[in-house]
């Protein structure tokens, strides 16, 4: 058994649950690990402290692990992930005013993302005709599914997210304020911030992230590749601790204990955490609740095992929105970030996925099924394409 002291960074979000439970409810200790959790305020801080070695590991946006390994927008530090902390978990929330506008122009059930996207398209066109300011949406980071899901949803109705609307990065704790002040008309963020907006009466949850894509790797447990190479035993112990925690989280009998432990770290009421973990979210200030068991998945149905299809999906989004070019060598770098081999070595082979998972591994609400082996073909099938040259330089 290993005995190691580890510093691990996290952002106070519900999708850090497996990590928080591993550290606070004894699963790390069982593996001989002494974890010091460090709460951070920005993804930039988490990334930088992980990169320069102040953190041994971190709760990280999956696309940031990819971007860091590619060296886009920032210094290149190869990161790997042997464990997914969460599948899904985001939602798109809009202001009451925008919701009313969408509802008025919708040609069907607005809970259907293609209907809401088309309604948004009509509003956008109307604003353009009147030379009104474009609608503004907040998201958490340039390399995030919050960014990509908003874009995917809009583009499905022919909206160009770079031309027709404004997308701005906002720290999650500022989202609700920005919606209240009218600085943004909507946002895509993780739990608990959508619920906070609904509870304070300023916003409505329009879509769960899982309605845009049924299965995306939202947050990963990330370490530097070099650290992984140097500390194989500690890493295996970490994977076992996280897996035990994830199983504990998915057992409904432990919901109260889990919600309480997570709420302590997040500084919110346990009930807010429970709502997110069970996928029963109040979507409107009038009390309407929407339920979806796929809202967030921690350890169910292979959620924790790194999936090469997810790596390809993230790279496809990065290329689609002009953050990096499509190249075989970059593609190989991206695939090397996701390490199911380390997961399997620590835990034994993963049982086959249960039913109900999307056949292409993603399950997007619009567009053709995703072919991980043919990213070029996938991008070709979309009408909105970025100009040839990427707008980001690779930092070497």
């Amino acid at each position: 058994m290993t005995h190691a002291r580890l510093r691990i960074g996290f952002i106070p979000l519900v999708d850090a649950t497996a990590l928080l439970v591993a550290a606070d409810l004894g699963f790390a200790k069982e593996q001989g690990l002494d974890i010091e959790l460090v709460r951070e305020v920005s993804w930039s801080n988490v990334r930088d402290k992980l990169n320069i070695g102040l953190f041994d590991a971190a709760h990280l946006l999956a696309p940031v692990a990819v971007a860091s390994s590619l060296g886009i927008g920032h210094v290149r530090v190869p990161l790997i992930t042997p464990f997914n902390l969460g599948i899904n978990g985001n939602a798109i929330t809009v202001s009451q005013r925008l919701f009313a506008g969408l509802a008025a122009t919708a040609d069907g059930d607005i809970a259907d993302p293609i209907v809401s996207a088309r309604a948004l398209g009509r509003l956008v066109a109307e604003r353009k005709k009147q030379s009104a300011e474009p609608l503004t949406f907040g998201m958490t980071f340039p390399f995030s599914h919050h960014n990509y899901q908003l874009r995917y949803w809009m583009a499905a109705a022919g909206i160009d997210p770079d031309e027709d609307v404004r997308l701005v990065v906002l720290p999650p704790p500022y989202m609700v304020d920005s919606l209240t002040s009218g600085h943004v008309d909507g946002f895509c963020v993780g739990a608990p911030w959508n619920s906070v907006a609904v509870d304070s009466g300023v916003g409505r949850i329009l879509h769960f992230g899982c309605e845009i894509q049924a299965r995306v790797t939202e947050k990963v447990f990330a370490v530097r590749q070099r650290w992984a190479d140097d500390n194989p035993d500690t890493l295996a112990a970490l994977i076992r601790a996280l897996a035990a925690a994830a199983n504990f989280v998915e057992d409904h009998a432990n919901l109260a204990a889990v919600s309480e432990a997570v709420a302590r770290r997040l500084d919110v009421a346990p009930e807010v955490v429970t709502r997110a973990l069970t996928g029963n979210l109040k979507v409107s200030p009038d009390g309407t609740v929407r339920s979806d068991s796929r809202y967030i998945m921690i350890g169910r149905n292979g959620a924790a095992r790194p999936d090469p299809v997810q790596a390809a999906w993230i790279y496809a989004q990065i290329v689609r929105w002009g953050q990096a070019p499509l190249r075989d060598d970059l593609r190989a770098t991206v695939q090397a970030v996701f390490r199911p081999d380390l997961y399997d070595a620590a835990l034994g082979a993963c049982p086959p996925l249960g039913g109900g998972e999307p056949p292409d591994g993603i399950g997007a609400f619009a567009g053709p099924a995703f072919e991980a082996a043919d990213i070029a073909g996938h991008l070709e099938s979309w009408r909105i394409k970025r100009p040839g040259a990427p707008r980001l330089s690779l930092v070497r």
Partner: protein
Amino acid sequence: MRKGSEPPGHGAPSPGGHRDSTLKIAIVDESPVRAAILEDGLREAGFTLVERIGETRNLLARVYALDPDVILIGLENPSRDVLEQMFQMSRAVKRPVAMFVDQSDSASIEAAVDAGVSAYIVDGLKKERITSILDLCISRFNSFARLQAELDKAKDALEDRKIIDRAKGVLMKARNCTEEEAYALLRKTAMNENKRIAEIAQSVLTAAEMFK
């Protein structure tokens, strides 16, 4: 081009020389005191184009309006993520990059993280110029932290004084003694029990409350 006209930049110091006064520096800090300390330091060091951004609403628009060469922001500021969006812009603006990009200087990066400051610097700026700014930031951030610690200590001391004064009052009344005697009693008890005088004074106040 007109004949005989001087080449642009003639008379100015050679590139890479002392042109720091032309560097535009933006400080993003919600603490006006720390921002002022930093700004003073930069001005003393000869950087005259220093702007403060205290309000982080619409931060990106403010930064673009200023068009700085260097942006300084505290690591405890969540708006760091907002600045990351600068790297995503297609329009022709100067593109500051994070200080962490140059990994050759890991000592100064760690010192900066320790002090709690991060910097974004326009690509192509000479390394020595960055280092001098960063070093200045680190020392000013550290002295602000020291100042803050001293202030906290002073506040604690003031609080202690109040507690001790009240305890003296309780003792003077209960034992019918002078102020000096009451204080001597507190001090002696503190020494015997190996505690701070303020702690003993607090127990006196707690006990007095219970006997009320």
